[in-house]
Protein backbone atom coordinates (compact mmCIF):
# COMPACT_ATOMS: atom_id res chain seq x y z
CA UNK A 1 0.00 0.00 0.00
CA UNK A 2 1.25 3.45 -0.81
CA UNK A 3 2.02 6.02 1.84
CA UNK A 4 -0.11 9.13 2.10
CA UNK A 5 0.55 12.49 3.66
CA UNK A 6 -1.41 14.07 6.49
CA UNK A 7 -3.78 16.97 5.97
CA UNK A 8 -3.76 19.93 8.34
CA UNK A 9 -6.04 22.94 8.67
CA UNK A 10 -3.59 25.82 8.96
CA UNK A 11 -5.64 28.94 8.20
CA UNK A 12 -9.14 30.02 9.19
CA UNK A 13 -11.29 32.84 7.90
CA UNK A 14 -14.84 34.06 7.87
CA UNK A 15 -16.79 36.90 6.39
CA UNK A 16 -20.12 38.13 7.69
CA UNK A 17 -21.53 40.94 5.55
CA UNK A 18 -22.58 44.25 7.07
CA UNK A 19 -23.35 45.03 10.69
CA UNK A 20 -25.10 42.42 12.81
CA UNK A 21 -28.87 42.62 12.50
CA UNK A 22 -30.88 41.99 15.65
CA UNK A 23 -34.37 40.55 15.68
CA UNK A 24 -35.97 43.96 15.39
CA UNK A 25 -33.96 44.82 12.30
CA UNK A 26 -35.05 41.86 10.19
CA UNK A 27 -38.29 43.25 8.83
CA UNK A 28 -36.57 46.35 7.43
CA UNK A 29 -34.47 44.09 5.24
CA UNK A 30 -36.70 41.15 4.45
CA UNK A 31 -40.09 42.84 4.72
CA UNK A 32 -43.11 40.96 6.01
CA UNK A 33 -44.27 43.52 8.55
CA UNK A 34 -47.98 42.70 8.40
CA UNK A 35 -49.44 41.48 11.72
CA UNK A 36 -49.76 37.83 10.68
CA UNK A 37 -46.20 37.57 9.37
CA UNK A 38 -44.98 39.50 12.38
CA UNK A 39 -46.56 36.97 14.71
CA UNK A 40 -45.11 34.02 12.81
CA UNK A 41 -41.67 35.61 12.77
CA UNK A 42 -41.68 36.23 16.51
CA UNK A 43 -42.69 32.66 17.20
CA UNK A 44 -40.01 31.20 14.94
CA UNK A 45 -37.30 33.45 16.35
CA UNK A 46 -38.25 32.39 19.84
CA UNK A 47 -37.82 28.77 18.99
CA UNK A 48 -34.63 29.02 16.93
CA UNK A 49 -32.88 31.20 19.50
CA UNK A 50 -31.03 33.32 16.94
CA UNK A 51 -30.45 36.80 18.39
CA UNK A 52 -28.42 38.33 15.59
CA UNK A 53 -27.30 37.55 12.07
CA UNK A 54 -25.87 39.22 8.98
CA UNK A 55 -27.42 40.00 5.63
CA UNK A 56 -25.77 41.18 2.43
CA UNK A 57 -28.67 43.62 2.16
CA UNK A 58 -28.75 47.29 2.99
CA UNK A 59 -31.31 48.78 5.36
CA UNK A 60 -33.79 48.98 2.49
CA UNK A 61 -33.37 45.35 1.58
CA UNK A 62 -31.25 45.91 -1.52
CA UNK A 63 -28.39 43.43 -2.10
CA UNK A 64 -24.91 44.75 -1.33
CA UNK A 65 -22.76 41.85 -2.49
CA UNK A 66 -22.74 38.63 -4.45
CA UNK A 67 -22.38 35.22 -2.85
CA UNK A 68 -19.05 34.79 -4.66
CA UNK A 69 -17.84 37.99 -3.00
CA UNK A 70 -18.63 36.60 0.43
CA UNK A 71 -16.72 33.45 -0.47
CA UNK A 72 -13.68 35.37 -1.68
CA UNK A 73 -13.59 37.56 1.44
CA UNK A 74 -13.69 34.52 3.71
CA UNK A 75 -10.97 32.87 1.61
CA UNK A 76 -8.77 35.96 1.78
CA UNK A 77 -9.21 36.03 5.55
CA UNK A 78 -8.14 32.37 5.76
CA UNK A 79 -5.16 32.91 3.45
CA UNK A 80 -4.12 35.99 5.45
CA UNK A 81 -4.44 34.01 8.66
CA UNK A 82 -2.01 31.49 7.20
CA UNK A 83 0.18 34.19 5.68
CA UNK A 84 -0.05 32.90 2.11
CA UNK A 85 -1.45 34.18 -1.15
CA UNK A 86 -4.07 32.81 -3.53
CA UNK A 87 -1.19 31.92 -5.87
CA UNK A 88 0.04 29.45 -3.25
CA UNK A 89 -3.03 27.18 -3.40
CA UNK A 90 -3.49 24.47 -6.03
CA UNK A 91 -7.07 23.46 -5.29
CA UNK A 92 -10.20 25.36 -4.38
CA UNK A 93 -13.27 23.49 -3.14
CA UNK A 94 -16.40 25.61 -2.80
CA UNK A 95 -19.69 24.71 -1.21
CA UNK A 96 -22.92 26.64 -1.46
CA UNK A 97 -26.61 25.90 -1.59
CA UNK A 98 -27.23 28.37 -4.40
CA UNK A 99 -24.59 30.30 -6.28
CA UNK A 100 -25.29 33.65 -7.86
CA UNK A 101 -25.72 32.20 -11.33
CA UNK A 102 -27.04 28.97 -12.81
CA UNK A 103 -23.97 28.39 -14.96
CA UNK A 104 -20.98 28.12 -14.60
CA UNK A 105 -20.19 26.38 -11.34
CA UNK A 106 -19.76 28.40 -8.17
CA UNK A 107 -16.08 27.48 -7.79
CA UNK A 108 -15.29 28.86 -11.24
CA UNK A 109 -16.79 32.20 -10.27
CA UNK A 110 -15.00 32.26 -6.92
CA UNK A 111 -11.67 31.38 -8.55
CA UNK A 112 -12.19 34.07 -11.17
CA UNK A 113 -12.69 36.68 -8.47
CA UNK A 114 -10.03 35.35 -6.08
CA UNK A 115 -7.28 35.11 -8.70
CA UNK A 116 -4.08 33.19 -7.95
CA UNK A 117 -2.75 30.67 -10.44
CA UNK A 118 -4.01 27.56 -12.19
CA UNK A 119 -5.78 25.28 -9.76
CA UNK A 120 -8.15 22.35 -9.40
CA UNK A 121 -11.74 23.33 -8.65
CA UNK A 122 -14.65 21.59 -7.04
CA UNK A 123 -18.16 22.99 -6.72
CA UNK A 124 -19.94 20.97 -4.06
CA UNK A 125 -23.63 21.63 -4.17
CA UNK A 126 -26.14 20.48 -1.60
CA UNK A 127 -27.10 22.18 1.58
CA UNK A 128 -25.46 22.42 5.00
CA UNK A 129 -23.20 19.37 4.74
CA UNK A 130 -21.78 20.33 1.34
CA UNK A 131 -18.96 22.26 3.00
CA UNK A 132 -17.67 19.10 4.67
CA UNK A 133 -18.04 17.26 1.34
CA UNK A 134 -15.80 19.96 -0.15
CA UNK A 135 -13.40 19.60 2.78
CA UNK A 136 -13.32 15.83 2.28
CA UNK A 137 -12.31 16.24 -1.36
CA UNK A 138 -9.58 18.74 -0.55
CA UNK A 139 -8.24 16.65 2.33
CA UNK A 140 -8.15 13.55 0.11
CA UNK A 141 -6.11 15.28 -2.58
CA UNK A 142 -3.72 16.69 0.00
CA UNK A 143 -3.29 13.27 1.58
CA UNK A 144 -2.59 11.73 -1.81
CA UNK A 145 0.20 14.23 -2.27
CA UNK A 146 -1.42 15.60 -5.41
CA UNK A 147 -1.51 19.13 -4.04
CA UNK A 148 0.51 20.79 -1.29
CA UNK A 149 -2.17 23.33 -0.41
CA UNK A 150 -5.89 23.74 -0.92
CA UNK A 151 -8.56 26.11 0.29
CA UNK A 152 -12.14 25.23 1.14
CA UNK A 153 -15.02 27.66 1.53
CA UNK A 154 -18.67 27.38 2.44
CA UNK A 155 -20.67 30.43 1.43
CA UNK A 156 -24.33 31.36 1.49
CA UNK A 157 -26.41 34.36 0.48
CA UNK A 158 -30.04 33.28 0.88
CA UNK A 159 -31.32 36.69 2.00
CA UNK A 160 -32.08 37.89 -1.53
CA UNK A 161 -34.68 35.20 -1.96
CA UNK A 162 -36.12 35.67 1.53
CA UNK A 163 -37.39 39.19 0.76
CA UNK A 164 -41.08 40.01 0.65
CA UNK A 165 -41.30 40.34 -3.13
CA UNK A 166 -40.74 36.58 -3.42
CA UNK A 167 -43.68 35.93 -1.14
CA UNK A 168 -46.19 38.40 -2.60
CA UNK A 169 -49.07 36.54 -4.18
CA UNK A 170 -47.58 33.14 -3.37
CA UNK A 171 -49.03 30.64 -0.98
CA UNK A 172 -46.35 30.40 1.67
CA UNK A 173 -47.02 28.13 4.58
CA UNK A 174 -45.05 27.30 7.66
CA UNK A 175 -42.68 25.30 5.47
CA UNK A 176 -41.28 28.50 3.94
CA UNK A 177 -41.63 30.83 6.94
CA UNK A 178 -39.54 28.55 9.11
CA UNK A 179 -36.49 29.04 6.88
CA UNK A 180 -37.25 32.67 6.05
CA UNK A 181 -36.68 33.78 9.63
CA UNK A 182 -33.83 31.38 10.25
CA UNK A 183 -31.36 31.66 7.38
CA UNK A 184 -28.86 34.45 6.87
CA UNK A 185 -25.68 35.24 4.95
CA UNK A 186 -22.00 34.52 5.52
CA UNK A 187 -18.96 32.56 4.47
CA UNK A 188 -16.30 30.52 6.25
CA UNK A 189 -13.05 29.14 4.86
CA UNK A 190 -10.07 27.00 5.81
CA UNK A 191 -6.64 26.37 4.32
CA UNK A 192 -5.60 22.70 4.06
CA UNK A 193 -1.94 21.69 3.78
CA UNK A 194 0.18 18.53 3.93
CA UNK A 195 2.40 20.11 6.58
CA UNK A 196 1.32 21.75 9.84
CA UNK A 197 1.62 25.50 10.28
CA UNK A 198 5.33 26.23 10.84
CA UNK A 199 4.90 28.28 13.99
CA UNK A 200 1.30 28.10 15.15
CA UNK A 201 -0.89 25.16 16.15
CA UNK A 202 -2.84 23.39 13.39
CA UNK A 203 -5.78 21.03 13.23
CA UNK A 204 -4.88 17.67 11.75
CA UNK A 205 -7.82 16.16 9.85
CA UNK A 206 -8.04 12.56 11.04
CA UNK A 207 -11.02 11.69 8.86
CA UNK A 208 -14.09 13.10 7.17
CA UNK A 209 -17.25 11.06 6.75
CA UNK A 210 -20.30 11.94 4.73
CA UNK A 211 -23.38 9.73 4.60
CA UNK A 212 -26.63 10.17 2.70
CA UNK A 213 -29.82 8.43 3.70
CA UNK A 214 -31.79 9.72 0.70
CA UNK A 215 -32.54 6.12 -0.25
CA UNK A 216 -34.96 5.89 2.66
CA UNK A 217 -36.11 9.49 3.14
CA UNK A 218 -38.22 11.90 1.14
CA UNK A 219 -37.14 15.41 0.34
CA UNK A 220 -37.21 17.59 3.44
CA UNK A 221 -35.84 20.92 2.22
CA UNK A 222 -36.46 22.07 -1.31
CA UNK A 223 -36.70 24.82 -3.89
CA UNK A 224 -37.50 24.53 -7.59
CA UNK A 225 -40.09 21.79 -7.25
CA UNK A 226 -43.82 21.82 -6.60
CA UNK A 227 -43.82 19.26 -3.82
CA UNK A 228 -41.52 16.71 -2.23
CA UNK A 229 -42.02 14.26 -5.11
CA UNK A 230 -39.65 14.75 -8.04
CA UNK A 231 -41.96 14.46 -11.02
CA UNK A 232 -41.72 15.52 -14.62
CA UNK A 233 -43.53 18.83 -15.02
CA UNK A 234 -43.07 19.56 -11.35
CA UNK A 235 -39.66 21.21 -11.46
CA UNK A 236 -38.92 24.79 -12.39
CA UNK A 237 -37.03 23.62 -15.44
CA UNK A 238 -40.06 21.88 -16.96
CA UNK A 239 -42.47 24.82 -16.93
CA UNK A 240 -42.51 28.50 -17.80
CA UNK A 241 -40.56 30.62 -15.34
CA UNK A 242 -43.64 32.75 -14.56
CA UNK A 243 -45.68 29.62 -13.85
CA UNK A 244 -42.92 28.25 -11.65
CA UNK A 245 -42.83 31.46 -9.69
CA UNK A 246 -46.61 31.60 -9.35
CA UNK A 247 -46.54 28.04 -8.04
CA UNK A 248 -44.13 29.17 -5.34
CA UNK A 249 -41.36 26.96 -6.64
CA UNK A 250 -38.71 29.59 -5.96
CA UNK A 251 -39.39 29.67 -2.26
CA UNK A 252 -37.04 27.69 -0.08
CA UNK A 253 -39.17 25.29 1.94
CA UNK A 254 -38.61 22.77 4.67
CA UNK A 255 -41.02 20.10 5.85
CA UNK A 256 -40.71 20.88 9.54
CA UNK A 257 -42.65 17.73 10.40
CA UNK A 258 -39.63 15.66 9.34
CA UNK A 259 -37.10 17.41 11.56
CA UNK A 260 -37.52 15.11 14.54
CA UNK A 261 -36.70 12.20 12.24
CA UNK A 262 -33.66 14.12 11.04
CA UNK A 263 -32.43 14.61 14.60
CA UNK A 264 -32.96 10.92 15.39
CA UNK A 265 -31.12 9.86 12.24
CA UNK A 266 -28.24 12.22 13.05
CA UNK A 267 -27.90 10.80 16.53
CA UNK A 268 -27.86 7.27 15.08
CA UNK A 269 -25.06 8.33 12.74
CA UNK A 270 -23.08 9.63 15.71
CA UNK A 271 -23.74 6.39 17.60
CA UNK A 272 -22.39 4.50 14.62
CA UNK A 273 -19.18 6.54 14.67
CA UNK A 274 -18.73 5.45 18.27
CA UNK A 275 -19.66 1.84 17.56
CA UNK A 276 -17.18 1.44 14.72
CA UNK A 277 -14.45 3.21 16.65
CA UNK A 278 -14.03 6.33 14.55
CA UNK A 279 -14.90 8.34 17.63
CA UNK A 280 -13.30 7.31 20.90
CA UNK A 281 -15.56 8.92 23.48
CA UNK A 282 -12.79 8.78 26.10
CA UNK A 283 -10.64 11.00 23.90
CA UNK A 284 -13.15 13.37 22.39
CA UNK A 285 -12.56 16.83 23.82
CA UNK A 286 -14.71 19.20 21.76
CA UNK A 287 -17.80 19.09 19.61
CA UNK A 288 -18.63 21.81 17.08
CA UNK A 289 -22.12 21.07 15.91
CA UNK A 290 -24.26 22.71 13.28
CA UNK A 291 -27.94 22.80 13.96
CA UNK A 292 -30.62 25.02 12.54
CA UNK A 293 -32.38 26.00 15.70
CA UNK A 294 -31.84 25.79 19.42
CA UNK A 295 -34.67 23.25 19.56
CA UNK A 296 -32.19 20.72 18.26
CA UNK A 297 -29.27 21.90 20.37
CA UNK A 298 -30.62 20.25 23.49
CA UNK A 299 -31.67 17.09 21.67
CA UNK A 300 -28.20 16.66 20.17
CA UNK A 301 -26.34 17.69 23.31
CA UNK A 302 -28.22 15.23 25.51
CA UNK A 303 -27.76 12.44 22.99
CA UNK A 304 -24.01 13.00 22.88
CA UNK A 305 -23.80 13.24 26.63
CA UNK A 306 -25.33 9.79 26.92
CA UNK A 307 -22.15 8.50 25.28
CA UNK A 308 -19.78 11.15 26.63
CA UNK A 309 -20.74 11.83 30.24
CA UNK A 310 -17.86 14.31 30.58
CA UNK A 311 -19.21 16.48 27.77
CA UNK A 312 -20.14 19.78 29.33
CA UNK A 313 -21.14 23.03 27.72
CA UNK A 314 -17.52 24.23 27.75
CA UNK A 315 -16.66 21.53 25.27
CA UNK A 316 -19.63 22.12 23.05
CA UNK A 317 -19.50 25.01 20.64
CA UNK A 318 -21.99 26.73 18.39
CA UNK A 319 -22.37 30.37 17.42
CA UNK A 320 -25.84 30.01 15.93
CA UNK A 321 -27.30 32.61 18.29
CA UNK A 322 -24.91 35.37 17.26
CA UNK A 323 -23.92 34.52 13.66
CA UNK A 324 -27.19 33.00 12.50
CA UNK A 325 -27.78 29.87 10.46
CA UNK A 326 -25.59 30.28 7.39
CA UNK A 327 -26.17 26.82 5.94
CA UNK A 328 -23.04 25.28 4.46
CA UNK A 329 -20.93 28.17 5.81
CA UNK A 330 -22.01 27.56 9.39
CA UNK A 331 -19.56 24.84 10.34
CA UNK A 332 -16.52 26.83 9.16
CA UNK A 333 -17.82 30.05 10.74
CA UNK A 334 -18.22 28.19 14.03
CA UNK A 335 -14.83 26.44 13.71
CA UNK A 336 -13.11 29.75 12.95
CA UNK A 337 -14.54 31.38 16.05
CA UNK A 338 -13.79 28.42 18.29
CA UNK A 339 -10.22 28.33 16.97
CA UNK A 340 -9.60 32.07 17.14
CA UNK A 341 -10.92 32.37 20.67
CA UNK A 342 -8.52 29.71 21.92
CA UNK A 343 -10.92 26.96 22.92
CA UNK A 344 -8.60 24.18 21.71
CA UNK A 345 -5.24 23.07 23.11
CA UNK A 346 -2.59 20.84 21.50
CA UNK A 347 -3.40 17.16 21.82
CA UNK A 348 -7.13 17.73 22.06
CA UNK A 349 -9.61 16.33 19.56
CA UNK A 350 -12.55 18.02 17.89
CA UNK A 351 -15.60 16.53 16.22
CA UNK A 352 -17.40 18.59 13.59
CA UNK A 353 -21.00 17.49 13.06
CA UNK A 354 -23.33 18.71 10.33
CA UNK A 355 -26.79 17.25 9.75
CA UNK A 356 -28.39 18.32 6.47
CA UNK A 357 -32.14 18.23 6.17
CA UNK A 358 -32.23 18.49 2.33
CA UNK A 359 -32.70 14.78 1.89
CA UNK A 360 -31.04 13.47 5.01
CA UNK A 361 -27.27 13.79 4.75
CA UNK A 362 -24.86 13.75 7.66
CA UNK A 363 -21.25 14.87 7.67
CA UNK A 364 -18.66 14.57 10.40
CA UNK A 365 -14.98 15.40 10.62
CA UNK A 366 -12.53 14.44 13.34
CA UNK A 367 -9.66 16.80 14.05
CA UNK A 368 -6.67 16.77 16.38
CA UNK A 369 -4.91 19.90 17.57
CA UNK A 370 -1.16 19.68 16.86
CA UNK A 371 1.54 22.01 18.13
CA UNK A 372 3.93 23.67 15.66
CA UNK A 373 6.69 21.27 14.54
CA UNK A 374 9.48 22.83 16.60
CA UNK A 375 7.40 22.57 19.78
CA UNK A 376 6.27 19.02 19.25
CA UNK A 377 9.32 17.62 21.00
CA UNK A 378 8.26 19.43 24.14
CA UNK A 379 4.77 17.94 24.09
CA UNK A 380 4.48 14.68 25.97
Amino acid at each position, binding site marked *: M*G*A*TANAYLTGFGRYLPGAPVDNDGIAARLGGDDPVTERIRRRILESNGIRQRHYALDEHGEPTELNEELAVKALRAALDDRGIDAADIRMLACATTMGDVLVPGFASMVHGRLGGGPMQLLSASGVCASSLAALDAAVSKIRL*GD*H*PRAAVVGSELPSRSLRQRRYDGVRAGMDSHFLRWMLSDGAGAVVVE*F*QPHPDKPSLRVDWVRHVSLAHEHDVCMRAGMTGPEPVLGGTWQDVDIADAEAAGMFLLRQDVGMLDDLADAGIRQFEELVDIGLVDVRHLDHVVCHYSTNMFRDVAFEALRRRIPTLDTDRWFSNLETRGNTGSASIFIALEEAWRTGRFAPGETVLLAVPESGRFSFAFAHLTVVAPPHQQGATP
Partner: protein
Amino acid sequence: MSTTTTASAEAAPSAADTLFERLADVWVELEERLERVPILARLAEGTVTLDDYRRLLFNLRQQVVDGSPWISRAASSFDGDHFELRSAAIRHAEEEHRDHLMLERDYVAIGGSLDELRAGRKNIGSEALSAYMFHYAGRPNPVGLLGAMFIIEGLGARRAAGWAARFQEVLGLADNQVHFMRYHQDADTEHTGNLEAILTSGAIDARAADEIVRCAQVVARLYALQLEELDR
Protein backbone atom coordinates in the same frame (compact mmCIF):
# COMPACT_ATOMS: atom_id res chain seq x y z
CA MET B 1 44.80 10.36 -23.41
CA SER B 2 44.58 10.00 -19.67
CA THR B 3 47.04 10.32 -16.85
CA THR B 4 45.87 7.32 -14.89
CA THR B 5 48.41 5.59 -12.75
CA THR B 6 49.18 2.07 -13.80
CA ALA B 7 48.02 -0.16 -11.01
CA SER B 8 49.74 -3.47 -10.61
CA ALA B 9 47.34 -6.21 -11.61
CA GLU B 10 49.88 -9.04 -11.61
CA ALA B 11 49.13 -10.38 -8.12
CA ALA B 12 45.37 -10.27 -8.56
CA PRO B 13 43.39 -13.49 -9.09
CA SER B 14 41.44 -11.90 -11.91
CA ALA B 15 41.08 -8.42 -13.36
CA ALA B 16 37.33 -8.33 -12.64
CA ASP B 17 37.71 -9.24 -8.96
CA THR B 18 40.34 -6.63 -8.49
CA LEU B 19 38.25 -4.03 -10.25
CA PHE B 20 35.28 -4.78 -8.00
CA GLU B 21 37.43 -4.59 -4.92
CA ARG B 22 38.88 -1.28 -5.98
CA LEU B 23 35.39 0.09 -6.77
CA ALA B 24 34.15 -1.18 -3.40
CA ASP B 25 36.90 0.85 -1.72
CA VAL B 26 35.76 3.93 -3.59
CA TRP B 27 32.20 3.22 -2.49
CA VAL B 28 33.16 2.85 1.17
CA GLU B 29 35.00 6.15 1.05
CA LEU B 30 31.97 7.79 -0.55
CA GLU B 31 29.64 6.45 2.13
CA GLU B 32 31.90 7.79 4.85
CA ARG B 33 31.88 11.16 3.18
CA LEU B 34 28.09 11.14 2.71
CA GLU B 35 27.60 10.61 6.43
CA ARG B 36 29.26 13.97 6.99
CA VAL B 37 27.18 15.83 4.39
CA PRO B 38 25.03 18.17 6.52
CA ILE B 39 21.66 17.52 4.86
CA LEU B 40 22.16 13.73 4.99
CA ALA B 41 23.26 13.95 8.62
CA ARG B 42 20.07 15.85 9.43
CA LEU B 43 18.08 13.27 7.49
CA ALA B 44 19.67 10.47 9.50
CA GLU B 45 19.02 12.12 12.85
CA GLY B 46 15.46 13.11 11.89
CA THR B 47 15.88 16.88 12.05
CA VAL B 48 15.57 17.43 8.33
CA THR B 49 12.93 19.97 7.24
CA LEU B 50 10.61 20.23 4.29
CA ASP B 51 12.78 23.05 3.03
CA ASP B 52 15.79 20.69 3.11
CA TYR B 53 13.93 18.25 0.88
CA ARG B 54 12.84 21.06 -1.43
CA ARG B 55 16.42 22.33 -1.67
CA LEU B 56 17.76 18.87 -2.34
CA LEU B 57 15.32 18.36 -5.22
CA PHE B 58 16.08 21.82 -6.54
CA ASN B 59 19.83 21.22 -6.51
CA LEU B 60 19.67 17.68 -7.89
CA ARG B 61 17.38 18.74 -10.72
CA GLN B 62 19.91 21.14 -12.22
CA GLN B 63 22.38 18.30 -12.70
CA VAL B 64 19.89 15.48 -13.38
CA VAL B 65 18.72 17.25 -16.55
CA ASP B 66 22.24 16.75 -17.90
CA GLY B 67 22.22 12.98 -17.30
CA SER B 68 20.74 11.83 -20.55
CA PRO B 69 22.73 14.38 -22.64
CA TRP B 70 26.13 13.30 -21.32
CA ILE B 71 25.28 9.62 -21.71
CA SER B 72 24.20 10.38 -25.29
CA ARG B 73 27.45 12.17 -25.91
CA ALA B 74 29.33 9.20 -24.54
CA ALA B 75 27.39 6.90 -26.86
CA SER B 76 28.56 8.90 -29.84
CA SER B 77 32.17 8.69 -28.63
CA PHE B 78 32.34 4.88 -28.76
CA ASP B 79 33.75 3.52 -32.03
CA GLY B 80 32.90 0.26 -33.76
CA ASP B 81 35.25 -1.72 -31.53
CA HIS B 82 33.11 -0.67 -28.57
CA PHE B 83 29.80 -1.42 -30.22
CA GLU B 84 28.24 -3.08 -27.14
CA LEU B 85 29.11 -0.15 -24.91
CA ARG B 86 27.59 2.21 -27.47
CA SER B 87 24.39 0.11 -27.47
CA ALA B 88 24.27 0.13 -23.69
CA ALA B 89 24.81 3.88 -23.55
CA ILE B 90 22.08 4.57 -26.11
CA ARG B 91 19.62 2.42 -24.16
CA HIS B 92 20.59 4.00 -20.89
CA ALA B 93 20.34 7.54 -22.27
CA GLU B 94 16.82 6.85 -23.45
CA GLU B 95 15.83 5.43 -20.07
CA GLU B 96 17.16 8.45 -18.19
CA HIS B 97 15.74 10.91 -20.67
CA ARG B 98 12.55 11.70 -18.76
CA ASP B 99 13.86 11.29 -15.21
CA HIS B 100 13.98 14.96 -14.38
CA LEU B 101 10.26 15.28 -15.19
CA MET B 102 9.52 12.95 -12.29
CA LEU B 103 11.69 15.05 -10.01
CA GLU B 104 9.91 18.18 -11.21
CA ARG B 105 6.51 16.71 -10.39
CA ASP B 106 7.72 15.90 -6.87
CA TYR B 107 8.96 19.46 -6.48
CA VAL B 108 5.59 20.87 -7.51
CA ALA B 109 3.74 18.37 -5.31
CA ILE B 110 5.46 19.75 -2.20
CA GLY B 111 4.55 23.30 -3.12
CA GLY B 112 7.49 24.40 -5.28
CA SER B 113 7.22 26.48 -8.43
CA LEU B 114 8.04 24.70 -11.67
CA ASP B 115 9.11 27.97 -13.27
CA GLU B 116 11.56 28.72 -10.47
CA LEU B 117 12.88 25.17 -10.53
CA ARG B 118 13.51 25.29 -14.27
CA ALA B 119 15.11 28.71 -14.00
CA GLY B 120 17.53 27.43 -11.34
CA ARG B 121 21.28 27.20 -11.77
CA LYS B 122 23.66 24.42 -10.83
CA ASN B 123 25.43 24.61 -7.50
CA ILE B 124 29.23 24.57 -7.35
CA GLY B 125 29.39 20.80 -7.02
CA SER B 126 26.89 20.24 -9.83
CA GLU B 127 28.86 22.56 -12.11
CA ALA B 128 32.00 20.53 -11.50
CA LEU B 129 30.26 17.17 -11.82
CA SER B 130 28.38 18.05 -14.99
CA ALA B 131 31.39 19.66 -16.64
CA TYR B 132 33.50 16.61 -15.84
CA MET B 133 30.89 14.22 -17.23
CA PHE B 134 30.54 16.12 -20.50
CA HIS B 135 34.28 16.46 -20.82
CA TYR B 136 34.84 12.78 -20.20
CA ALA B 137 32.00 11.72 -22.49
CA GLY B 138 33.61 13.65 -25.35
CA ARG B 139 36.83 11.64 -25.18
CA PRO B 140 37.27 8.77 -27.63
CA ASN B 141 35.91 5.51 -26.22
CA PRO B 142 35.24 6.83 -22.67
CA VAL B 143 35.25 3.43 -20.99
CA GLY B 144 36.09 5.06 -17.67
CA LEU B 145 32.53 6.34 -17.50
CA LEU B 146 31.54 2.88 -16.30
CA GLY B 147 33.06 4.08 -13.02
CA ALA B 148 30.75 7.10 -13.07
CA MET B 149 27.81 4.77 -13.65
CA PHE B 150 28.95 2.65 -10.72
CA ILE B 151 28.72 5.66 -8.42
CA ILE B 152 25.63 7.40 -9.78
CA GLU B 153 23.54 4.28 -10.35
CA GLY B 154 24.81 2.84 -7.11
CA LEU B 155 23.53 5.86 -5.22
CA GLY B 156 20.18 5.45 -6.93
CA ALA B 157 19.96 1.72 -6.29
CA ARG B 158 21.38 1.58 -2.79
CA ARG B 159 20.68 4.93 -1.19
CA ALA B 160 17.87 6.89 -2.89
CA ALA B 161 14.97 4.73 -1.70
CA GLY B 162 16.34 4.84 1.83
CA TRP B 163 16.51 8.61 1.67
CA ALA B 164 12.97 8.71 0.26
CA ALA B 165 11.64 6.49 3.04
CA ARG B 166 13.39 8.58 5.67
CA PHE B 167 12.10 11.84 4.21
CA GLN B 168 8.60 10.31 4.20
CA GLU B 169 8.99 9.15 7.77
CA VAL B 170 10.29 12.45 9.12
CA LEU B 171 8.16 14.83 7.04
CA GLY B 172 5.02 12.76 6.48
CA LEU B 173 5.29 12.86 2.69
CA ALA B 174 3.02 10.90 0.36
CA ASP B 175 4.45 8.53 -2.24
CA ASN B 176 3.36 11.11 -4.80
CA GLN B 177 5.92 13.52 -3.42
CA VAL B 178 8.96 11.22 -3.57
CA HIS B 179 8.57 9.56 -7.00
CA PHE B 180 12.05 10.41 -8.15
CA MET B 181 13.94 8.85 -5.27
CA ARG B 182 11.66 5.83 -5.02
CA TYR B 183 11.79 5.12 -8.74
CA HIS B 184 15.56 5.01 -8.74
CA GLN B 185 15.71 2.06 -6.46
CA ASP B 186 14.17 -0.17 -9.12
CA ALA B 187 15.53 1.51 -12.22
CA ASP B 188 19.08 1.83 -10.97
CA THR B 189 19.15 -1.67 -9.54
CA GLU B 190 18.49 -2.83 -13.09
CA HIS B 191 21.17 -0.50 -14.39
CA THR B 192 23.77 -1.66 -11.88
CA GLY B 193 22.97 -5.23 -12.91
CA ASN B 194 23.69 -4.31 -16.51
CA LEU B 195 26.87 -2.58 -15.38
CA GLU B 196 28.12 -5.63 -13.51
CA ALA B 197 27.52 -7.73 -16.61
CA ILE B 198 29.74 -5.40 -18.61
CA LEU B 199 32.43 -5.24 -15.96
CA THR B 200 32.61 -9.04 -15.74
CA SER B 201 32.35 -9.65 -19.48
CA GLY B 202 36.14 -9.87 -19.87
CA ALA B 203 36.17 -6.83 -22.11
CA ILE B 204 37.81 -4.67 -19.45
CA ASP B 205 41.60 -4.72 -19.59
CA ALA B 206 43.89 -3.37 -16.88
CA ARG B 207 44.18 0.04 -18.48
CA ALA B 208 40.39 0.35 -18.78
CA ALA B 209 40.04 -0.81 -15.17
CA ASP B 210 42.32 2.01 -14.05
CA GLU B 211 40.27 4.50 -15.95
CA ILE B 212 37.05 3.17 -14.44
CA VAL B 213 38.36 3.39 -10.89
CA ARG B 214 39.78 6.87 -11.41
CA CYS B 215 36.51 8.12 -12.91
CA ALA B 216 34.59 6.58 -10.01
CA GLN B 217 36.84 8.39 -7.52
CA VAL B 218 36.33 11.75 -9.22
CA VAL B 219 32.58 11.32 -9.63
CA ALA B 220 32.15 10.16 -6.01
CA ARG B 221 33.94 13.25 -4.77
CA LEU B 222 32.04 15.61 -7.08
CA TYR B 223 28.68 14.00 -6.29
CA ALA B 224 29.29 14.52 -2.58
CA LEU B 225 30.42 18.07 -3.35
CA GLN B 226 27.09 18.64 -5.07
CA LEU B 227 25.28 17.59 -1.89
CA GLU B 228 27.59 19.69 0.29
CA GLU B 229 27.24 22.86 -1.76
CA LEU B 230 23.43 23.15 -1.78
CA ASP B 231 22.31 26.50 -3.19
CA ARG B 232 25.85 27.81 -3.54
